[in-house]
C-alpha cells in the first residue's frame, strides 16, 4: 500500500498540540482530533507550573493559537473515533464530528449567545465551582474560539439564535461522518484524574472543605471561581491551615485506587502549597506524604524552597481518614508520626492530591486502534521506545502510556513525531498546499493612503461604542482616505470587502478597529496580502477587549477611548513600512555530539530519513554510559540493545562516525553551521557543514569520596555491583549486602536527585534475591523514588524481604571496620540506631555533569548551563529539548539525570524538532526583528549582554570600527537590546521608535 503524507493526532492537549505542530512544521498534513470543544487539555486548566512557577496560560496560549491557525493542521473538535482500518503508512480512520449546533465557520466567538442564554449549565473547566450557560465556550481564551450548545441543558428557547447577528446558530445542524486517510497515528488522549468514590474515607463529596487538587488548582487560578483568592468552599473564608493528602488513588493496594505511583502529585502539591501561600500569606500548608518524589530537573530545590521560604510543613504519614467538625466545618486528621506518636490535628481545609488514571475511554481507543493496554489500562509501549505502541505506525505520547508531567509529555509528543518522520519522511510535503499569492504592490515613497475598517462585532462593540461616530472621526484623520464599518470585520464576506476597498481606493495601509491582534491580526494580514499588500502594512486598534467590554457602563467615555485608539493606530500606520522576511538556506545535514545511546538513536533517526549525519564521540568506542548497564528495572536487555544500535550505526551509510574525537570549532547559526572535528589516534581533522546540532554528551557517575570507597575492597558502586551480579557468582558467598542511596545526590555539592538510583538499587537487590534468596539485602534510603509503574518493583522488593530503612539527611550512615568486616551504623528514623554487618556495601552513586567539559562546549554553542552543570533548555516546560539558540537541541543525560527510555524519547524528540528545520529548503526569519544603524553604533556591547538569543555579536566594520551586528535568523524582535541603547543605534521593525513616538504624541 502506498504511504500517505498525513498524520492523525488524537487528543489536542499540550501533547497532541506539540505533535501536530512538529509534524505540521515538517511538511505533513495533520488531522488533529479532539473530543471536547476546545484544545489545551489539562494544562490550560492549571494556574502555575512547577518548578518555575510559570503562569500556565501565558506559556501555553501562544502555542494553542499557533495550533489553531496552522495551515497544515486541520483541527476538528467534538469528535468521536468510529473505526480504523489499514496499516502503518496507510490508515483510514472514520471520524464522527458531533454537531456543535453552531456553525463553527461562521461563529466569531463573540459570546453574545452565551451571555443571553437563560439556562445555566455546569462549566466543566472550572471543575464545577462556577456557574455557566448552556451555550458556552470552555474557557475565555479557548482555541478555537467557537461556541457550542450543550443539548443536555438547552431548552430550545431560541434566544441565542435571535441574538446572533452572524446567524451562526443552527439547531438542526447534523453530525458529520468523514473518512480520513493518514500514514501514521499519534494517540495523545491524556489522562483522567482519580475521583474518590462516593463513600470515601476522606469525606470528599460529603464535607464541603475537602476538595481535590485539580479543584484547588482552579481555586488558585486568577481566572478561576474566586479570581485567585484562596477561599474555602463552605463559607468563603481564607483557610489558614490547609492539609494536602498525598497518594489519593495512587500507590493504593486496597483496590479503591491504583497500585502505581502517579509521578506528578508530589510536585504539583508542593506547587499548589507554595502558590496558595503566595496568594494568601495567611495560608499555612501541611503536606502528608510517604515519600517525597521530587526526581526531576530542579525539583528537589523546589521542595527545599517550599519548606524554607514558604514554610510548607512536610509530615511523613499516610492519612487514613478525615472527620468534619460540624460547627466550624473544619476537618480533623489523625495521623501517626514516624516515631510512632499518634496526633490529632484540625485543619480548615483539606486538599486531596488525586492521582492520574488512564483516560476513561482508554479501552475504547485501544479496541478501535487495535493496540494493547498494559495491566493498568494504559497504552502498552515498547520497553526501549516508550512512544511505540504494540501496533506499527501507531504511537502514543503523554500520560496515555504512563502518568507523567508536562515536559515529559512534550518530549514524548515530539518523540512520537520523530518516529513518524522515520516512517513517512519520503511523503513529506505531498499533501500540503502552498498558497499562491499575487506579487506585492510597491508602496515605497508613496504617501500613506489609509483605509480604516471599524467592527460592530454584532453588539459587542456597537452596543457600547458609537461606531458610526468613530467611523466619521476616523475619516477626518490625516492620510485616511476611507473609513467603513462592518457588522463583523472578521467574517469571510468582509475579507472580500476589504480586498475590494484596497483596490478601489488604492489603499497602502489598512487599519481594523475590532478585537485583539493576538488572535485576529494574522487573519487580516493574510487578507491584505492576498490583495497584494505587504503583511506589515496593517494595524489594529483593540476597541473591544480593551474598550467596549471593559467600559460597558460608560458608553461616552468608551466612544472617546475608541476614537483615541483609532487615532493612535492611524498615527502609527502613517509611519509603517513593508517588512521583508529574510530567507535563509538550510544545509540538510546534522551533527550529533556524543555517541551514547541517545546520540546513536538520534543519528539513526536522522539517517533513516536519508539525512547525512556526523556522529562525534570522545571515547574510542561508541556506547557511553549504557556500557555499564545490563538490564533495565523492567527487564529490558540493555547490552543486546546497545550492541544492535552500534552495529546499525556503523553500517549506516548516512552516518559518519568520528571516535576519539573532539569538536574543535563550531560556527554559524540555524541551518548554516560549520564545524571542525579532530579525531582518531592520529588527530586527523574533518570539516563539515550542517544545519542542526544535537547535544547528547551525557554525564558521569559520581566517584564517592565518602563511605571508604576506594579504600575498602568490599565497598563498591552500584554499577560495579551490577557487573558483578551479571558476570560472576561471587554473590552466593555473601550473607549480607547493604546499599546506601543518595551518595553524591541531594546534598550541598549536588543538590538534585539522580533519578535512576532507586530503580537501580531495587533492580540489583531483586537480582541478588533471585540468585541467592538467603542473602540479606538492606537498602538505606531517604525517599524511595520509584515513580510511575516502577512502584511495582518497589512493592515486589518489599515482598521478597528486602529491608528498607530510612535515614535522615542530617545523620547519614557511618561505616566501621573490624577485622576486615564492615559494619554499617544507621540512625533509622523509625527504629533508632542500628548496626548492620555487611559483606558488601553498595553505594548508589549519583549522576554528575562535568563543569569543564560542558562549559567549553556550551560556550562554543552559545547555550547556557544550569547551576549543576547540566545544559539548560529554552523552556523547562514547553521546550524541553530546544535551546534558546535556534537549531541546537539537547537530549539525554546532558540535560539532566534520566532513564534510558527517557533518553531515547529525548533523542527522537530532538530529531523531530530538528526536522522542522531540515525538512525545509529555506527558513523564513521573523520580520519584526532588530536592525542596527552602524553609523550610530559605538560597539559598547550592552546589547550583546542583554540579548537572550545570542543574536547579536560585535564585528569590525570597515568604516565604523567595532559595531554590533544582528543575526536576523536568531533575533526574535523582543527589543531588550534597543531599550538600553544609548546611541539609539538599534530599532525594532514593527515597533520602531518613530512609530511609538507617533502613537504617544499628537494627542491634543
Amino acid at each position, binding site marked *: 500500500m502506498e504511504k500517505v503524507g498525513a498524520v492523525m493526532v488524537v487528543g489536542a492537549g499540550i501533547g497532541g498540540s506539540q505533535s501536530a505542530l512538529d509534524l505540521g512544521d515538517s511538511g505533513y498534513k495533520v488531522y488533529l482530533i479532539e473530543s471536547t470543544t476546545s484544545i489545551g487539555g489539562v494544562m490550560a486548566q492549571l494556574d502555575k507550573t512547577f518548578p518555575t512557577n510559570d503562569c500556565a496560560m501565558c506559556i501555553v496560549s501562544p502555542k494553542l493559537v499557533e495550533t489553531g491557525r496552522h495551515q497544515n493542521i486541520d483541527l476538528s473538535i467534538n469528535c468521536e473515533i468510529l473505526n480504523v482500518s489499514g496499516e502503518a503508512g496507510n490508515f483510514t480512520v472514520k471520524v464522527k464530528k458531533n454537531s456543535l449546533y453552531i456553525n463553527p465557520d461562521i461563529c466569531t466567538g463573540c459570546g453574545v449567545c452565551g451571555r443571553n442564554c437563560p439556562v445555566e449549565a455546569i462549566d466543566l473547566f472550572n471543575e464545577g465551582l462556577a456557574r455557566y450557560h448552556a451555550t458556552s465556550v470552555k474557557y475565555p481564551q479557548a482555541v478555537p474560539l467557537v461556541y457550542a450548545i450543550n443539548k443536555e441543558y438547552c431548552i430550545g428557547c431560541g434566544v441565542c439564535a435571535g441574538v446572533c447577528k452572524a446567524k451562526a446558530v443552527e439547531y438542526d445542524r447534523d453530525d458529520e461522518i468523514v473518512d480520513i486517510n493518514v500514514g501514521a497515528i499519534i494517540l495523545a488522549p491524556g489522562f483522567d484524574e482519580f475521583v474518590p468514590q462516593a463513600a470515601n474515607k476522606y469525606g470528599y463529596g460529603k464535607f464541603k472543605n475537602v476538595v481535590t487538587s485539580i479543584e484547588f488548582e482552579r481555586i488558585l487560578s486568577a481566572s478561576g471561581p474566586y479570581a485567585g483568592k484562596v477561599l474555602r468552599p463552605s463559607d468563603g473564608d481564607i483557610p489558614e491551615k490547609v492539609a494536602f493528602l498525598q497518594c489519593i488513588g495512587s500507590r493504593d493496594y486496597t483496590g479503591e485506587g491504583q497500585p502505581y505511583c502517579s509521578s506528578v502529585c508530589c510536585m504539583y502539591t508542593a506547587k499548589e502549597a507554595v502558590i496558595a501561600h503566595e496568594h494568601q500569606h495567611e495560608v499555612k500548608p501541611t503536606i502528608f506524604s510517604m515519600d517525597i518524589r521530587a526526581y526531576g530537573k530542579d525539583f528537589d530545590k523546589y521542595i527545599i524552597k517550599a519548606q524554607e521560604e514558604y514554610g510548607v510543613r512536610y509530615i511523613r504519614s499516610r492519612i487514613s481518614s478525615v472527620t468534619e467538625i460540624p460547627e466550624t466545618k473544619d476537618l480533623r486528621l489523625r495521623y501517626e508520626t514516624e516515631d510512632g506518636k499518634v496526633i490529632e490535628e484540625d485543619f480548615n481545609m483539606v486538599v486531596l492530591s488525586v492521582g492520574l488514571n488512564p483516560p476513561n475511554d482508554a479501552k475504547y481507543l485501544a479496541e478501535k486502534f487495535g493496540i494493547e493496554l498494559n495491566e493498568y489500562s494504559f497504552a502498552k509501549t515498547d520497553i526501549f521506545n516508550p512512544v511505540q505502541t504494540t501496533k506499527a505506525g501507531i504511537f502514543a505520547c503523554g500520560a496515555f502510556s504512563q502518568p507523567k508531567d508536562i515536559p515529559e509529555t512534550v518530549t514524548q509528543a515530539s518523540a512520537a513525531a520523530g518516529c513518524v518522520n522515520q516512517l513517512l519522511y519520503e511523503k513529506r510535503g505531498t499533501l500540503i498546499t502552498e498558497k499562491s499569492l499575487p506579487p506585492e504592490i510597491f508602496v515605497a515613497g508613496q504617501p500613506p493612503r489609509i483605509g480604516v475598517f471599524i467592527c460592530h462585532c454584532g453588539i459587542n462593540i456597537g452596543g457600547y461604542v458609537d461606531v458610526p461616530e468613530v467611523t466619521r472621526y476616523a475619516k477626518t484623520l490625516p492620510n485616511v482616505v476611507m473609513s467603513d464599518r462592518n457588522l463583523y470585520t472578521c467574517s469571510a464576506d468582509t475579507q472580500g470587502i476589504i480586498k475590494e476597498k484596497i483596490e478601489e481606493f488604492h489603499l497602502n495601509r489598512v487599519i481594523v478597529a475590532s478585537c485583539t491582534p493576538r488572535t485576529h491580526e494574522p487573519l487580516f494580514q493574510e487578507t491584505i496580502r492576498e490583495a497584494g499588500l505587504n503583511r506589515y502594512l496593517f494595524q489594529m486598534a483593540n476597541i473591544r477587549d480593551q474598550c467596549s467590554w471593559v467600559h460597558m457602563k460608560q458608553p461616552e467615555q468608551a466612544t472617546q477611548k475608541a476614537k483615541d485608539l483609532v487615532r493612535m493606530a492611524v498615527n502609527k500606520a502613517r509611519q509603517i513600512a513593508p517588512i521583508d522576511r529574510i530567507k535563509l538556506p538550510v544545509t540538510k545535514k546534522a551533527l550529533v555530539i556524543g555517541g551514547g545511546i541517545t546520540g546513536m538513536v538520534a543519528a539513526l533517526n536522522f539517517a533513516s530519513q536519508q539525512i547525512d549525519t556526523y556522529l562525534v564521540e570522545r571515547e574510542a568506542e561508541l556506547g557511553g554510559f549504557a556500557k555499564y548497564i545490563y538490564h533495565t528495572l523492567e527487564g529490558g536487555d540493555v547490552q543486546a540493545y546497545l550492541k544492535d544500535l552500534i552495529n546499525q550505526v556503523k553500517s549506516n551509510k548516512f552516518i559518519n562516525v568520528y571516535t576519539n574525537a573532539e569538536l574543535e570549532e563550531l560556527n554559524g547559526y540555524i541551518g548554516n553551521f560549520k564545524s571542525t572535528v579532530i579525531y582518531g589516534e592520529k588527530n586527523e581533522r574533518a570539516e563539515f557543514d550542517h544545519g542542526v546540532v544535537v547535544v547528547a554528551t551525557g554525564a558521569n557517575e559520581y566517584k564517592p569520596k565518602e563511605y571508604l570507597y576506594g579504600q575498602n575492597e568490599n565497598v563498591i558502586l552500584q554499577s560495579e555491583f551490577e557487573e558483578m551480579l551479571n558476570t560472576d557468582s561471587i554473590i552466593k558467598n555473601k550473607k549480607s549486602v547493604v546499599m546506601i542511596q543518595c551518595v553524591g545526590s541531594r546534598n550541598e555539592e549536588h543538590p538534585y536527585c539522580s533519578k535512576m538510583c532507586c530503580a537501580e538499587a531495587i533492580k540489583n537487590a531483586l537480582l541478588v534475591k533471585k540468585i541467592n534468596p538467603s542473602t540479606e539485602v538492606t537498602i538505606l534510603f531517604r525517599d524511595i523514588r520509584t515513580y510511575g509503574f516502577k512502584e511495582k518493583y518497589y512493592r515486589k522488593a518489599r515482598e521478597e524481604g528486602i529491608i528498607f530503612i530510612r535515614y535522615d539527611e542530617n545523620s547519614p550512615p557511618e561505616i566501621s571496620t573490624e577485622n576486615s568486616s564492615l559494619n554499617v551504623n544507621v540512625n533509622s528514623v523509625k527504629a533508632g540506631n542500628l548496626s548492620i554487618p555487611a559483606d558488601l556495601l553498595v553505594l548508589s552513586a549519583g549522576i554528575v555533569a562535568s563543569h569543564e567539559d560542558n562549559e567549553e562546549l556550551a560556550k562554543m554553542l552559545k547555550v547556557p548551563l544550569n547551576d549543576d552543570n547540566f545544559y539548560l533548555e529554552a523552556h523547562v516546560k514547553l521546550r524541553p529539548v530546544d535551546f534558546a539558540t535556534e537549531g541546537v537541541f539537547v537530549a539525554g543525560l546532558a540535560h539532566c539525570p534520566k532513564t534510558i527510555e527517557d533518553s531515547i524519547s529525548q533523542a527522537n524528540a530532538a530529531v523531530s524538532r530538528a526536522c522542522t528545520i531540515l525538512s525545509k529548503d529555506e527558513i523564513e526569519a521573523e520580520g519584526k526583528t532588530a536592525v542596527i544603524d552602524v*553609523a*550610530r*553604533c*559605538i*560597539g*559598547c*556591547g*550592552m546589547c550583546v*549582554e*542583554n540579548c537572550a538569543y545570542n543574536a547579536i555579536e*560585535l564585528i569590525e566594520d570597515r568604516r*565604523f*570600527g*567595532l559595531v554590533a551586528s544582528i543575526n536576523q535568523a536568531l533575533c526574535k524582535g523582543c527589543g531588550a537590546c534597543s531599550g*538600553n541603547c*544609548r*546611541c*539609539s543605534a538599534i530599532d525594532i521593525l514593527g515597533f520602531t*521608535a*518613530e512609530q511609538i*513616538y*507617533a502613537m504617544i504624541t499628537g494627542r491634543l
Partner: protein
Amino acid sequence: MGIEQDNKEIISSIRENAKNLLSENQVDVVIGYSEGTVPLSSTPIIIRRVEDIEKLTWNNLCYMNLARYLAPLMPQLCDSEGKSLRIGIVAKGCVGRAINLLAVEKQVDLDKIKMIGFNCNGIVNRSKIALEIGEKEILEVNISGNEIIVKGRDWEKRFPYDQYINELCKVCQVKSPSSTEANCVGECQELETINDEFSDITEFETKSAGEKWEYFKEILQVCTLCYSCRQACPVCYCNLCFVDQNKPVWFGKTTEYQDIFTFHLVRAQHLAGRCVACGACSSVCPVGIDLNFITRKLEKIVKERYNYTSGLNAEKVPPMMDFKMEDAQEFMLEED
C-alpha cells in the same frame, strides 16, 4: 608637608614614571596635564619625547578626566604607518576608573595602555571659588601650604584648601587607580568594593516631590544646553549623542525647562552605573551647575540596588549590561 609639598612629590613621580616608560620604549606617547593658559585651569598635553617630560605637571586644577582622550579616539591614535600607539596616561583614581569602564565597554585596549598612577589629593571647586570672587578678574592662582591663594590686579583672597575642593573629592575613596600592576606604574591598588556614603543624597530624598522639583528647576534653569558636561565626560563617547538625534526628535532644543529637564534626566539614565565620579562635568560647567549632585545619586542607586561601583576593575559589567532574577522590585505597583 601641605598640599604644596604633596604636589611637588606627585609631579616628580609622574615625570619619573613617564620618563621611564618613554625611554624604555614601553609606550609611544604619554597623555598628561600641563599648566593652563588661564588661571583656574590646566591643559591636557600629549608628549612623545623624553625631552618634553618637564611639561608634565600636576596641580589641583587638573579637573579634566584624561580618559576622555581615549574614547572614541583611541583607534585613531596611530603612528604614520597606521599602527595603533601604546599610550601612557597620567591617572588619578577617577581616570583609572574611567579606563576600566571603557575597557569593559570595549572602547579601549588595556594591553596598549599604561596608567601612571598616583594618589590624587583633590580638585579645587572652581565654581565655588568663582562664586565668591564674583565678577572680578582673576590673574593668578597658587597653592601655598594648605591654602588656595587667588590674586587679582590689586587684591588677594585665601581659601582653606580642604573646604574648597569638590564635594566628590572630599568623600573620594579611589584616589589612585584601581588596577593591577600590569596595567599601571606608580601608585595603584586593587579595590574590590568601596563603602561610599550618601547622607546628602539621602537627606534630599526625604523632601516632597514639589520641593525636589523646585530645587532642580532652580539650579537647572540657568543651563544653556551648551553640552560642556557631555564633552568633558570620559564615558560620553557616542558617535551621535541623543541630543543630536532625529527620527524621532525625542526632545526640543529650546532652553525651556522641559527640554533642560529631559537632557539632564536622559543623560543621568545613560550614566547610571557608568559615572566614575571624576567631577569633570561640574568643573567645566560655565554656569556653575552642581552636576555632581545628580551623578552622586546615580552612584547611590547602583550601589544600593546592585552593589556596584563603576571602574574598580575591567571585568565586572555595569548593572545595565546585566540582570538577575532576584533583583529588587519594590517599586512595582502591587495590589493593596
